């Protein structure tokens, strides 16, 4: 059984019920302790870090990556690792939204059209994965095709909306909180509910935890692949729409690195890359944690290189810890 073999039972699948309760008990505690410890260090060393306005700006900067990560969590929990095409999907959505508006389409028609295209793009990738394609490679290729065709269609130029009709989507602040933050919070809530309380959410978890068991139980793993990639694609497209609306333009390189940031949030949140384990709230905490870490480092005047390096180290340490914890549990 190799690490890339999707047809094999993903690790953690055969954990006995005692293990499940430990899983649900210990992981959030560890995450919460790490976040609290981090906040404490930040508060002691940098007083301006722990202020209400700074919290707002942290959440705001976490929001877009958070939306992408939140919806990609479905892909990870379903055992399809991650999607490497979300930054291109978001950029494509931003360009398409800007183009539709510039053609004089009403705002809601443009939004619906963009989401429909994104869903189709996601379904296509999910279909390739359902047939047995490796998700990493399928999404890597899809991202290249999306980027290439987007650049081709637009001559690699920025597309302007040419109207302010959609500005409110990106710039309004209902109750003093930005629309992006609202969307992030709402999507986190919905994702958490769907994953834990609905049939679909449990099917996603079971397919990720143990594909054969899921098939034996009458689920269709292929169909789940289709849906989760569509969900991930829709989340990325939403991030694209927000950004296009905010800046009144769509640009191809606007989301460079967003996929890596989103994956980082998922991993720091403690989702198991081989599937079956993870939660929407923890991914949200992961996204906020990374944004807070970035924020603290900027406040402390760290250089860009050091910031990138430390974020990488934070990911390495957290995924190593989570893996070791899971390994212990499996042996016990």
């Amino acid at each position, binding site marked *: *059984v*190799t*690490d*890339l*073999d999707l047809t094999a039972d993903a690790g953690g699948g055969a954990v006995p019920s005692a293990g499940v309760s430990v899983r649900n008990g210990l992981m959030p505690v560890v995450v919460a302790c790490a976040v609290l410890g981090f906040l404490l260090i930040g508060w002691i060393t940098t007083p301006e870090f722990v202020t209400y306005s700074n919290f707002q700006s942290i959440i705001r900067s976490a929001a877009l990556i958070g939306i992408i990560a939140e919806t990609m969590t479905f892909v990870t929990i379903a055992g399809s*690792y991650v999607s490497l095409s979300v930054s291109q999907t978001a950029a494509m959505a931003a360009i398409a939204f800007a183009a539709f508006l510039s053609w004089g389409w009403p705002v809601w028609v443009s939004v619906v059209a963009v989401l429909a295209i994104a869903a189709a793009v996601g379904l296509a990738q999910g279909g*390739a994965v359902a*047939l*047995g*394609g*490796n998700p*990493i*490679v*399928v999404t*890597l*290729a*899809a*991202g*290249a*095709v999306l*980027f*290439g*065709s987007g*650049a*081709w269609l637009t001559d*690699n130029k920025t597309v302007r909306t040419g109207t302010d009709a959609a500005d409110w989507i990106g710039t309004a602040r209902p109750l003093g909180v930005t629309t992006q933050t609202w969307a992030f919070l709402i999507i986190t809530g919905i994702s958490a509910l769907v994953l834990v309380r609905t049939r679909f959410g449990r099917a996603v978890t079971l397919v990720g935890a143990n594909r054969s068991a899921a098939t034996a139980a009458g689920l269709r793993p292929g169909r789940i692949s289709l849906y989760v990639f569509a969900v991930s694609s829709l989340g990325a497209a939403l991030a694209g729409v927000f950004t296009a609306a905010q800046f009144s333009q769509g640009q191809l390189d606007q989301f460079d690195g967003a996929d*890596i940031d989103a*994956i*980082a949030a998922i*991993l720091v949140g403690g989702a198991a*890359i*081989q599937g079956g384990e993870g939660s929407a709230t923890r991914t949200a905490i992961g996204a906020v944690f990374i944004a807070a870490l970035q924020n603290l480092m900027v406040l402390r005047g760290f*250089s*860009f*290189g*050091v*910031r*990138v*390096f*430390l*974020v*990488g*180290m934070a*990911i*390495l340490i957290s*995924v*190593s810890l989570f*893996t*070791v914890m899971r*390994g212990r549990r499996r042996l016990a």
Partner: protein
Amino acid sequence: MRVLQRVEAMTWARIALCLIVFVFFTLRDDRFFTTNNVFTILEGFAFLGLAALAVGVTIIAGEFDLSVGSAAAVAGIVAVSIVEEISLVPAVLVTTAIGAAYGAVQGYLVHRLKIQSLVFTLGTLIALRGVAFMISGENTVVMSDLSISKSVRRQLWIVSPSSLVTIAVFVAIGLLLRYTRDGREIYGIGGGRQEAAAAGVAVVRPLVLAFALSGSFAALTGALTSIKSGSAGPAAFEELLLPAVTAALIGGVSLFGGKGSVVGIAIGALTLRFLISGLSLEGAPFYVLTLATGAVLIVVVVLELVIGPHVLRARWQGWRNRRRWVAEAPPL
């Protein structure tokens, strides 16, 4: 035996595809099959082939090294910074040795922590990018003595020192993987890790070797390419993964692990180089090249799913089993 013939047929199919692309562009454009353009193709092969080898050897071992791009960027900066003080050959050797050491540590940690290499190398992908920005002071590092650059890319008919080095590396690694015990063990742990361990393979050894090879090839790519151009930027090689994976997969490296050959990777890299060179001659912008690479990758993935050796073998066995049941069925 018949299965073997089919696998063999796949290799012939790859060579045929490579030749078709070559002949297509030769007929289409007079400038394609000229000494200078073949030289350019081989120069690109030196870059792409080494990257494909780096990714390919870890995929053969059943793992995935996402960090090759960042490792190449760090290596490029190191090589360009030291080459004027310790001269060309030592600089390349030292950089490659650093890459090998980094890869070995990474392989050991992946083994020791029992962590998915996909997750771990995602962390090092980010952390090393940070290192690249740190050691370069966030600026492009340049060489003042460009005669060293010229000596690396000096044209000798269709080859240069850098493409000769690449060809030598291909021959050496081809022999290593095919004829040495260490090489066979890399295939062993990729094809079936538990079976290999049960057969007495110490999994850690081939795993460390595969990652050390991957790290050293990434470093060699970065060093040669950067010295050749006389400069190294901290953001370089971000798009290395896509063409490297594409070339490896065209060359028949299977994402299920344990399958693929150095000859195949060379054919894959050449095929992709022919395609990119042919399109560039016609004046295609970079995003069309990305689009083409992504499209080829999708075609390869779908082909492997539909007519790959795995599928053929499964069908063949299914057919044989049916025959056996028919043969062993009791007479009515």
